[in-house]
């Protein structure tokens, strides 16, 4: 039996498989399908100080190999989460609270409220579907550094992951900006901003017009970004973007990710996450890998010392 355990920012996870924010709620619904304690951690739906209603529908569309979503951070608010879901979820596995805000001060308040209550905070500065906050704070490196510092200053106990947007000029530069701001780790990529048009109605399918693109089709873009970001910083990286199976997860880990998040595939296959855990076990066994941690960052470039991007 191989050891699938990984250590992320000093916190031990039983395996590196984590359902991604927004695809898994707070875990209760999927726990009706399988025991979610088999997961390394759960990343919650994006939380805000106050409840949010989100965007009009349709909020989802499909294109070849990908989906687009524009849910717009609908959530019951952080207090509701703490009162109703947190203890239940903590009894299952590690908890990553994804937090968002309208302005920089909201991030500090959210972090202060959740400090010590969850295993990690994931700072959502990369949601493409909300007007204020969200991605607007996650594009320019100086904004990334600033919001990270403000959030970090509000935390005494819980490690801070900063979730990076791929809709930026240089992912390496933004990764370094988050590290300078005091991030304990990074997670990437959030969704790519996209649009799809219903040609009969000559209108975008999504009520919001644009949405975040995710799913198997974005995987090579995400692997490249995870490689670049993880080689630009010393802090650990959680990789995601189009993971559908254990082999995909291994690509991200070899590119430099300590753990991985699985999003869209939860919709395609509700049992995707436990299947990926089982697949990692099989792969380690068949490749004589005793500790899965040993594959992290093990990919070697062909004939050059760094990526030319």
């Amino acid at each position, binding site marked *: 039996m191989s050891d699938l355990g990984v250590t992320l920012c000093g916190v031990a996870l039983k395996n590196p498989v984590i359902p991604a924010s*927004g*695809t*898994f*709620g707070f875990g*209760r*619904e*999927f726990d*009706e*399908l399988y025991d979610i304690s088999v997961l390394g951690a759960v990343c919650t*739906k994006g939380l805000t100080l106050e409840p949010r*209603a*989100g965007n009009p*529908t*349709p*909020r*989802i*569309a*499909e294109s070849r*190999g*990908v*989906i687009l*979503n524009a*849910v717009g951070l*609908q*959530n019951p608010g952080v207090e509701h989460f703490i009162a109703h879901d947190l203890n239940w979820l903590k009894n299952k596995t590690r908890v990553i609270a994804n937090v968002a805000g309208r302005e920089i001060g909201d991030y500090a308040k959210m972090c202060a409220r959740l400090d010590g209550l969850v295993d990690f905070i994931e700072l959502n500065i990369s949601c493409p579907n909300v007007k204020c906050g969200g991605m607007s704070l996650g594009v320019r490196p100086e904004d990334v550094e600033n919001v990270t510092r403000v959030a970090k200053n509000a935390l005494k106990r819980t490690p801070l992951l900063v979730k990076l947007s791929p809709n930026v000029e240089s992912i390496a530069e933004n990764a370094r900006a988050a590290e300078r701001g005091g991030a304990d780790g990074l997670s990437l990529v959030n969704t790519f901003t996209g649009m799809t048009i219903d040609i009969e109605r000559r209108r975008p399918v999504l009520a919001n017009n644009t949405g975040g693109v995710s*799913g*198997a089709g974005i995987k090579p873009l995400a692997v490249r970004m995870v490689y670049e970001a993880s080689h630009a910083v010393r802090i650990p990286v959680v990789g995601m973007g189009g993971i559908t199976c254990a082999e995909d997860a291994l690509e991200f880990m070899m590119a430099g990710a300590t753990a991985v998040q699985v999003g*869209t*595939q*939860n*919709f*395609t*296959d*509700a*049992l995707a996450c436990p299947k990926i855990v089982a697949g990692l076990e099989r792969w380690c066994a068949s490749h004589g890998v005793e500790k899965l941690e040993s594959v992290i960052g093990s990919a070697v470039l062909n004939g050059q010392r760094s990526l030319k991007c």
Partner: protein
Amino acid sequence: MREINATVLENCAIAPEIYSLTFALEQPVRVRPGQFAMVGVDGFPLRRPIAICKAEGERVTLCYRLRGEGTRRLASRYSRGEKISVLLPLGNGFSVAEKEKRVALVGGGVGIFPLISVLREYAEQKEIYAYMGFRSRGDVCLQYELQRAKELTVATDDGSSGFCGTAVQAFMENVERVRPDVVLACGPTPMLRALKSAAAGRDFPVYASLEERMGCGVGACLVCVCALSDGSRARVCKDGPVFDLGEVIL
């Protein structure tokens, strides 16, 4: 609810652009009328939410309209003996209270299929008056199922079969005589809007099954929400798909 690797028994056209898919589960599941399944289509990231028309032991039948690439692929790719991934049963479904004896069903288009599951469940215990709308005579299907009703009115938009007009119009022409204790409906949003305004102020409740684009189908992703008149949002997949029509904003 469970994710099941089912075996296709039959997948064939029953009317223009309408297919009936029957598959076998490895063991029986209890399905309430009006519940639905999320059907995986090879090569498409999103499953298709489709109402359950019939569930008999381990045999389940869904009927669907060919609407886009996904449903066309579902029709062409899955023939007898193929494996198909389904997540079911999902949603709350329709329920009829003990005291509700006279039940009117109002269905339009693919909305008739979840109502067939109501007929199969309640036809023997209740007096069911069914108003089923189709575009034209050639679109009328599954009449042998619909005839489980005490009284069946087929309506066509062009009058080529039965009542000329919509299912809602056919129902409202008979409402005083039928005096339903409850109305169960499913159909396109304009039909449900018409029913909502026609039924406003009447002394019977109307429960309608809504349609929405879905992500997970189990209540986690908040993609398929609808607005309720108290200002809150509900998940069509988990809190619905059946809602008190008086309480949803269409």
